[in-house]
Each structure stands twice: as structure tokens, then as C-alpha cells.
């Protein structure tokens, strides 16, 4: 009896925790073009209950719901942008893995190029400075020149 209960518990555990595949065969749309668009959109959406996973990769039920929702919107004739807007309206900006360029996010997007330009400017000035000394400074100091002349005479 006890053994049976243990087995039952185990079976229950297994049933509860079965790993589902990310995209299930029954989710796939018949139209390959539409399905490709859905996959592309899915890769830009975050699974809300996971840790940093896209809904395309996630096994969670919520991710499945979102995947189905994306497909539903596309079947209803939404453009990619409209489908994304619909989902962001419902779930908030947090679902977007690609942050918008709106508002303060501009800082995020411009940080890299901005720093590169600044860096190019600074290092350009530095390199000019090094060259400046290169031209102003003879390669040998006057002492060294004198010494060289001495050696050459010998």
C-alpha cells in the first residue's frame, strides 16, 4: 500500500512537471508565411513568468498563451506592428525584448555610438599629441647626438 502510494506520488510529480516543448506542433499555423512572421514576433517577446526567456523558447503555459495570442492577431489580419502594439497594450512594455527608442531609452540606444564618437575624438587628439612630440622631439637628444658623433669618430 505504501509502495503504491509512493508510485502514485511519483507518477503525479512526473505528470505535473512534464517539460513541454517551446513551440507545440498544434500551435503552428497552416500558412508558412504567417507562421514565419509569428515566430519572428515571438522572438522579440519576453515570457513574463520566466527568467529572461523569449516566448519562443519558453516552456511556460503563459508563453504558450502569448504565442497563441500572437497567431490569433496575425490570423485576424493585424500587421506585425499592430499585433505587437496589441500585446504591449495588454502586458506592458516589459514584454518587449527590444526596448523602444522612446523617451529615456534614447540614452540607451545612443550610449554606444555616442561613446564611440567621444572616444574617437579623445584618442584622435591623443594620437596627434604623440605625433606632435614625434615631430618636435628629435629621436635622439642633443647629448645622445654628441655621444653618437663621438662613437662614429672613433
Amino acid at each position: 500500500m505504501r509502495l503504491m502510494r509512493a508510485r502514485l506520488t511519483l507518477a503525479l510529480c512526473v505528470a505535473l512537471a512534464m517539460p513541454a516543448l517551446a513551440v507545440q506542433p498544434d500551435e503552428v499555423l497552416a500558412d508558412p508565411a504567417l507562421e514565419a512572421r509569428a515566430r519572428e514576433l515571438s522572438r522579440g517577446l519576453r515570457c513574463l513568468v520566466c527568467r529572461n526567456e523569449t516566448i519562443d523558447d519558453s516552456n511556460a503555459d503563459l508563453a504558450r498563451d502569448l504565442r497563441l495570442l500572437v497567431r490569433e492577431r496575425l490570423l485576424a489580419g493585424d500587421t506585425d506592428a499592430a499585433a505587437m502594439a496589441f500585446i504591449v497594450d495588454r502586458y506592458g512594455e516589459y514584454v518587449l525584448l527590444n526596448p523602444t527608442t522612446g523617451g529615456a531609452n534614447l540614452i540607451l540606444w545612443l550610449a554606444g555610438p555616442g561613446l564611440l564618437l567621444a572616444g574617437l575624438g579623445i584618442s584622435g587628439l591623443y594620437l596627434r599629441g604623440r605625433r606632435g612630440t614625434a615631430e618636435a622631439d628629435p629621436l635622439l637628444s642633443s647629448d645622445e647626438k654628441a655621444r653618437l658623433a663621438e662613437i662614429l669618430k672613433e
Partner: protein
Amino acid sequence: MIVELGHFALILAFAVALVQSVVPLIGAQKRWAGWMAVGEPAATVQFLLIGFSFAALTYAFVTSDFSLRLVVMNSHTLKPMLYKVSGVWGNHEGSLLLWVLILALFGACAAWFGGNLPAGLRARVLAVQGMIGVAFLAFLLFTSNPFVRMAEPPFNGEDLNPLLQDPGLAFHPPFLYLGYVGLSMAFSFAVAALIEGRVDAAWGRWVRPWTLAAWIFLTIGIAMGSWWAYYELGWGGFWFWDPVENASFMPWLIAIALLHSAIVVEKREALKAWTILLAILAFGFSLIGTFIVRSGVLTSVHAFANDPERGVFILAILAVFMGGALTLFAFRAGSMEAKGVFSMVSRESALVLNNLLLAVACFVVFIGTIWPLIADLLWDRKLSVGEPFFNAAFTPFMIALAVVLPLGALLPWKRAKAGWAMRNLWGALALALALGALAFALQSGRSPLGPIGLMLGAWVVFGATTELWVRAGRGRGLERLGRIARLPRADWGKATSHAGLGVTIFAVAAINAWAIEDIRVVQEGESFPLGGFSVTLTDVHEVQGPNYLSTMAEMTVMRGDRVVATLFPEKRIYPVAAMPTTEAGIDFGLLRDIYLVIGDPQTDGGWAVRSYIKPFANWIWAGALMMALGGFLSLSDRRYRIAAGARRMAAAVPAE
């Protein structure tokens, strides 16, 4: 009893670290030889004590001592021996103990192999290393003690996270830590040099092998983690721009910049202040990485052991060490005059560009990683920054780096003509363009990512080959090949690492551009086409593992009538941790991997099956290994064994 001794040894190590961080520093300041000499035995003793402590914890795991809280939470009697051992660092407390063990190991290495360092510099390096030890031992003892006992020991443990029960992941953390913590040596050397107020060519030569060793380990560690993700997570992804991945990637990028700028210090006595700054930042990013992983402030798939309160402690450590070092830097940077002069077109300038691109790329990763936190704190915006951002914002810098790399590597020091270097490279460029064009023609109408990646990768690889050819100088045929073979190991190391980068660039582009995916329901006995192959689901059955239950499929991959491979993808359930994992069936190939995953049984019969063809997958990690191998070659070059400016000619290879 052994556990108590381990605990006691850890407390003693803390006391020894305190002595090590104070006495040699005062000695170096006052020029008291006796006080300076304390550093070496202290570093050795500290290492031995922590080593004993680590051995004691390992013993507790191996013997399944369930009176120890840590063992209860992370082990189980049925777990295979390998994972009992790797379970020691598969959790917060144990992994920190490994962290300080490696820190002490590096300190001890500096004591053992630092014979050719000036006594003052060595004493200061050991003191700074001791200070880092004090901070982390305090963190360990006061917030994360691994030796806490249970009042009522249970009969069995709660098992290790099944995802971590994998050979690849068993050794991923030690390598990563060797890298992270190895960068502490660069930091200690930088701070010691700042205290002394002197940075010269010899300093550049001393700091490089340590950084190189740390970088090699970091490269291997990151590659292992990425490979693990590829075969374990079940969809063949290998890099997710997850905060914790970024945490290891940032010090890696900065370490590359540091390696290159230290060359300029060594050869040309320029870029000193910048190199010091990079050395400080490299370790700073290691600390930030530790903070991100251990605090869980940024949610990520790696957050299996974290706690916000501990995060505050690490943040304090970070603030003290970075604040202190940067303040010191601000006071002393001005006094570090550059000696070497060079023109706008020269190896020096090329290395400045390399540093600029790497530093900005690192900054992009950094801001992308912490942006969700900033946006939440400042504007109360809950947002995510994921793969699309990093692909768009980070990749251009790597492309730029790959484009200029072959040219920059060929430029002579001081003064160069770009035309001369380019004349040697026309062949490589033509070959790369031809390969790209060929790929574009063959793939007809798919994304240009693949051909572009191939072109870029080939340009870097052929550029590295050309460089060896040019360096060999005169001679024809066999004679020239002989000269190439006799080139210094440093030249070979450089070419190998650079070529490795090219290989990885190509492979990443190829797998993204040319992968084939198939999702469908398959009945037992049914076949389906995949690329040019035919895959048959022969059988599905249950298998009992040592500590898991597996649903194992048998799948046969055929090409025409020939059996290419029989694969056994699995779905496992670990009952103790109540966690499922997927084990993909992978046929590793030179040009492609066949990657099969078994899913759920369907209500109307059959199984969900996901299958992929991943072109050139192995090349990603082969490239990373080439980078690491190049590092080893460079490290074994004889000029590191005969140190410049050495007081005595002690044979010393400061690595491992």
C-alpha cells in the same frame, strides 16, 4: 569533526589575510625588508588554510554529511559521485569558497613565482591581494557560511538542481572563477604600481602573463557555459545575452583590451595610465559580475543561489575597491608620462582603436545589462533589454574590430604606411570576398548574414595566416615554411587567437543564417524529412537513471539508404527536485550538427518532435578554443621565462 576543522581553518585564513594585507604594505613604505617578506609565507599559509577548508567541505559532500545545511540543500545520496563533488560549488556558499580558494591560489602563485619582481612591488601586490582576500573571507564568514550545521539532520538531501548535474557544467564555474579571480592579479599589480607611482616596460611585462592566464580561463569557462546551453537547454541556443552571461562577457572584453594595451606599455612605454585604468576596470567588472550573480538584482536563468542582502555586502566591497583604486588613479595618473612617440598610422594607433572598440562594446553590454534597473529606479518604467538590442547595438563594434584587425596586426610600430600593410593583404581580401560571393550565389535568396559572416571570418583567418607568412620574411618554398615554423611562440599565439576569432565570427553568422528547424507530431515508426536527411522515430521507452526517470526515444537519421546516426533524445524527470530536463540527441559533425528533441506524447497518439540542423555549430567553440590555445602559446613564449629587468634570473612562468 573535520567540518569543524574546516570552519576553523577558514577563520584562521581570515586572520592571516588581515596580516598579509597590512604588514607587507607598511614594510614596503618604510623599506623594512623583514616586514615586506611577511607577504610570501602569509600568502602560502592563507592558500593552505583555505585549501584545507575546501577539502573539508568536499569531504562533507562526498560522505553525504546531512548534518551540514549546505549538503542537505544541495545533495542527495543517490547523486553520482561527480555531482557530489561538483555540488560543492553548485551553490552560493560553496561557490564563494571556491572563489576565495582561487583568489588565495593566485596570491600564493605571486609569492612562489614572483621571485623576479622588485621586493617592494611584490610586497604591495601581495598586500592588495590580501585585502581582496579579507573582504571576501569576511563576506563568506559573516553572510554565507558554508559550515552551518543542522539542529535535526534529515535522512536525505534535497538534491542539486538537475540542470547543473552535467559534466559540462560541473567544470564551468571553476574555469570561470579562475578567469574572474585571475583578473584580481592585474588589479593588484595596478594598485601596487599606483602606490609606487611607477609604471614602466617591466611592469607591462609582469602584468601580461597574469592577465593572459586569467583571460584563457575566462575564455574556456565562457565557451563551456555556452556549449552547455547549446546541448542542454533543448533548442540549440548558445548565447542569450542573459545578465549573468554578460557578467562574464564584460571582464572578458576588457581583459582583451588590457592584454593589447599592456603590449604598448611593454614595447613602447605609452598608454600607461589607460592600461592601469583597464586593469582596475577588468577586476571591477569581475566584481560587478559576482554582484549580479550573487544578489539576483537582475533576474536571470542563473539565479539559482542568490539573496539581496548579500548583494549589499558585495556592492560595498565593489564600492571600496573600485572607489579606492580609482581615487588613487586620479591622484597618480598624471605622473605617468608616456615615453614612446608614434605617428597616426602605426601599430600603436591600431591598438588604440582596438581598445576603443572593445571598451565601447563592453560599455554597450554594461548599459544594456543594467538599463532595466536604471529605468525602474529613475522613471519607474518596467522594461526589458534582450537579444534584439544587443544584436543591434553590440555587433557593429565586433564587425568594425574584425574589419580593422588584419590590417592593424600587420602595421609596424612607431611609423607605418597603411599601403605597405595592405599590399600584403590583397590576397586575403580577395579570397574572403570570393568566398562570400560564392556563399551568396549558392544560398540564393536567403539573408545576407551568412555570406557576410563568412567573408568577415575568412578575412580575419586569412589575415592571420598572411601575417605569419610576412613575419617569416625572405625565402621561398620549404625554407620559408621552416622559418614560419620557427617563428616565436608569441607570433603563433597571436595568429592562432586572431584566427580563432575569425572562426567564431563565421560560425555564429552561419548557425543564425542557415539553421533548419522542424516541429511536428510523429508516430512511432513514422519518418519525416529534415534537410537532406530522413529521420525515423523508431521507439520510445522509459529508462530508470541513478537519480532520475527518463523517457528515451530512439531515432534513426538516414541519408538515402545509409544510416547517418542513431540518436537517443531524452526527457528526464528528477523526482527529488521535482524538475524536468531535456537531453537532446545530437549527432556532432564537422559541417553540421543534427539536433533532435523529444517532447510530449500527444492526446491522439504520437510524440511532439523538434529537430534541427545546426550548420557549423562546433566551429563556435572550436574558435573559442583556438583563442584560448593562442593564449597558451603566447604564455609559453620564452621571453616570459626570461623576464626583463629581473633582479635575478629566476626561471618563472607565472601561470596556472
